[in-house]
């Protein structure tokens, strides 16, 4: 039987922007060495095709160099290795793990590798850091570049000693001739060179079984800068004369500005007010001055009625976009006849709320104009897309705009767009000074985009002995990520129905896979109960995918599945699946206190397999973090909105997981050195919600089919 999930467009899909840059500017070899300094460089050219969508599309590189650059690598006269990639660090630890791969392949100490990331003037074009693509795509590309650079250094040594390169060995940042005992450091070999070589992306790389630096639990690069407060996130960069920028926000989504009286604000010392169509912003010397200036603006708005949270699921069901091209449908066998003939039939509806990313660093930007050129520092997952947004907004050629992304205070899929950058740049242009703009928490909770809400309808049939016969799955609005079932079912109908969402929505860690796994894995649990089978046994009976089977078995073993109830209110559940080429299985233990109605997740065991592990310490951190983030969406997070207004836009009102919510957690990492490494930032989040839902059922007999499940506790 074919795998239905193959027919759905893999992430990134509906919410990501895919437009390529419109303008290109030529680079020359001389420009290249101006950036890097003398030395030896390898420039990685990716052929047109799938990979080119990820990185390196469309950057012209002068006549001598190819058009499709995805990354480059340079070794200087001092032996320092610099890697240039358009990827960004947002807490997922990619700065460290990519450096590990390069050090490994180039045979240099980890400490000698420096990463230049996410700077549109210095790094090759990149679509963005999302979709768990950095590890499976960028890491192998950098490995190829590093291996070519190593070969180049070997050739330089061979030329110097007048020897064939075949007998020379590269190790520990030097090339040695074992026969004569001669050796030269990479630094010596790079000295005086201005040598750049372009290589195709297909060169072989060192297999994971022979990695020495990669595969190790190395600590985060620059850790000391973070524990001392020295690292400068975007809002921390404060050039001479910088002003604080703020934007006047509408009282409700979709409101239009009728009139504005800015006289009082404009009379304040040091204040600039800018109005450009619907956009109104202020610049003032400091945060408090800008707050005051904003408060002094008298604006009249026209609002329009719009759906509220209480009616959202009916709205989504009733507002499907007809024949939308984003619609995805897959059908195999005959679902209708299988359902009609089935002994056990189940039809249930599941819902998920809009939730917020709530990165601790809200959207922020610093904009500076100089001689008609614009430089913007901003926390973004897509520096090149932000550059395009700025170029379009200000009618500039791309080479007049530079976007730099400092390591950023997290994103979780929430920082794909450039609003703060455009706002800061607009205000800076009016004020004729650099402007730093940091969204307030209320702005972040209101004017960012949300993880989509959704309605999911599942209909299924199963034999008396627990074999799946039919599976019908409809997702309204939340998305197609993870919509296909990994279980073997002959008769399937799976469909994603796009809806024009009343709230602005977009990417979120694992996108719709969290919602779709919640529905599917809850439903599987319901089916197992219907035929009186153990939920693990039922899954394994319907599962041929060996990697997912291994994950379920590993989690169950570490958890002690099926568990033994020792107190009232205790329950056990499991859930799992395949997402972004990772395999996850999660077991959860909950405790429900009938008196207080409190639901506590007491213990979570996660088994995760993402191919060959690059950094087990960083990976463990990601898996635990995904579980904790998942806990929020599973239990209590929801954006409350009424008639175009978010009514809980504060941390005191929108509950995110805190210390006391944290369960005991065990992570079982399955290291498959024989398989390519997959990304790990997203997949581990998908098993948590269904595992907890199924455990709550096990504890209480209450089947909760709406995320969040217990925003106000659980009365049973």
């Amino acid at each position: 039987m074919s795998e239905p999930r193959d027919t759905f467009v893999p992430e990134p899909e509906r919410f990501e922007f895919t437009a390529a840059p419109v303008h290109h500017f030529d680079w020359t070899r001389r420009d290249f060495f101006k950036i890097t300094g003398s030395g030896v460089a390898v420039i990685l050219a990716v052929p047109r095709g799938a990979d080119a969508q990820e990185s390196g599309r469309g950057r012209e590189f002068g006549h001598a160099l190819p058009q499709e650059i995805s990354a480059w690598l340079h070794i200087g006269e001092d032996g320092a290795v610099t890697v240039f990639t358009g990827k960004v660090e947002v807490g997922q630890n990619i700065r460290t793990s990519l450096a590990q791969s390069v050090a490994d392949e180039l045979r240099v100490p980890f400490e000698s590798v420096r990463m230049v990331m996410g700077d549109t003037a210095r790094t090759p074009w990149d679509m963005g850091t999302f979709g768990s693509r950095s590890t499976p795509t960028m890491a192998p590309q950098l490995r190829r570049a590093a291996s070519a650079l190593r070969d180049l250094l070997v050739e330089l040594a061979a030329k110097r000693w007048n020897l064939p390169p075949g007998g020379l060995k590269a190790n520990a940042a030097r090339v040695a001739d074992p026969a004569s005992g001669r050796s030269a450091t990479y630094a010596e070999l790079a000295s005086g060179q201005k040598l750049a070589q372009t290589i195709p992306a297909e060169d072989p790389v060192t297999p994971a079984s022979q990695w020495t630096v990669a595969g190790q639990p190395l600590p985060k690069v620059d850790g000391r800068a973070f524990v001392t407060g020295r690292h400068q996130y975007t809002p921390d960069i404060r050039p001479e004369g910088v002003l604080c920028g703020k934007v006047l926000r509408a009282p409700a989504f979709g409101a239009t500005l009728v009139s504005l009286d800015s006289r009082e604000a404009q009379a304040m010392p040091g204040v600039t007010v800018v109005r450009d169509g619907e956009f109104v912003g202020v610049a003032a010397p400091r945060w408090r001055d800008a707050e005051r200036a904003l408060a002094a603006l008298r604006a009249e708005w026209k609002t329009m009625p719009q759906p509220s949270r209480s009616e959202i699921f009916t709205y989504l069901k009733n507002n499907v976009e007809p024949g939308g091209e984003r619609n995805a449908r897959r059908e195999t066998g005959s679902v209708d006849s299988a359902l009609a003939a089935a002994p056990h039939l189940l039809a249930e509806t599941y819902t998920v709320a809009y939730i917020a990313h709530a990165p601790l660093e809200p959207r922020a930007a610093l904009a500076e104009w100089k001689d008609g050129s614009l430089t913007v520092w901003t926390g973004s997952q897509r520096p090149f897309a932000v550059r395009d947004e700025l170029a379009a907004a200000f009618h500039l050629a791309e080479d007049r705009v530079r976007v730099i992304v400092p390591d950023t205070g997290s994103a979780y899929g929430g920082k794909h767009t450039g609003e703060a950058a455009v706002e800061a740049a607009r205000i800076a242009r009016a004020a004729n000074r650099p402007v730093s703009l940091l969204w307030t928490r209320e702005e972040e909770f209101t004017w960012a985009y949300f993880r989509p809400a959704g309605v999911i309808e599942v209909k299924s049939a199963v034999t008396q002995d627990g074999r799946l016969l039919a599976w019908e799955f409809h997702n309204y609005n939340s998305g197609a990520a993870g919509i296909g079932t990994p279980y073997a079912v002959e008769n399937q109908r799976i469909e994603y129905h796009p809806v024009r969402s009343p709230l602005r929505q977009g990417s979120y860690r694992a996108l719709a896979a969290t919602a779709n796994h919640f529905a599917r894995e809850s439903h599987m649990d319901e089916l197992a109960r219907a035929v009186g089978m153990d939920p693990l046994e039922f899954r394994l009976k319907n599962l041929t995918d060996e990697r997912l089977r291994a994950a379920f078995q590993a989690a169950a073993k570490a958890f002690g599945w099926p568990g033994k109830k020792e107190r009232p209110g205790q329950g056990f559940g499991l859930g799992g699946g395949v997402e972004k080429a990772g395999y996850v299985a999660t077991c959860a233990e909950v405790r429900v206190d009938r008196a207080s109605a409190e639901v506590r997740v007491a213990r979570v065991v996660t088994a995760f397999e993402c191919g060959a592990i690059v950094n087990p310490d960083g990976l463990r951190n990601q898996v635990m973090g995904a579980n904790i983030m998942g806990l929020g969406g599973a239990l209590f997070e929801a954006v409350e909105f009424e008639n175009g207004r978010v009514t809980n836009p504060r941390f005191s009102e929108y509950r995110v997981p805190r210390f006391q919510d944290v369960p005991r957690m065990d992570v079982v990492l399955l290291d498959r050195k024989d398989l390519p490494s997959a990304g790990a930032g997203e997949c581990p989040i998908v098993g948590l919600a269904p595992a907890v839902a199924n455990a709550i059922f096990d504890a209480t007999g209450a089947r909760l089919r709406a995320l969040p499940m217990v925003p106000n506790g659980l009365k049973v």
Partner: protein
Amino acid sequence: MGEPLQIQVNGTRHSVAADPETPLLWVLREDLGLTGTKYGCGEGACGACSVLVGGNLRRSCQVPLRAAAGKAITTIEGLEQNGRLHPVQQAFLDAGAFQCACCTSGMIVSGVALLGQFPSPSPQQITQFLQGNICRCGTYPRIADAIARAAEAMRKARP
């Protein structure tokens, strides 16, 4: 605006000419350039802006400048002494207790306050004390581990 106010931050005296109602957070960040203290919510609900005021843990977004005047203030930048990290900073490094690390300054300062109050904290005391600090990346278990490690290191360092 009136007379400049005197505040003492990390052992250095500063004269600040700002509205006395300005939250200390913005004085630190904008007037003194001490940007290690982060804005996270502006309502004292996330802990990212934690500092010590007169030895007590405070959310600097909730402390007006006038209330901080004349008191000794310690920020994340003041914990490292002569190039040596505070044991809590060192423990965060050793435990890898961060991802994006935007909460880290507030967590470390809160951890220092915690250990001042409970030199040998129980896991429950750590959890309760840090309940007001958000780590959106979810590194809570490692943060708790780092605090416990720091407590151990500080115990050993005592004569």
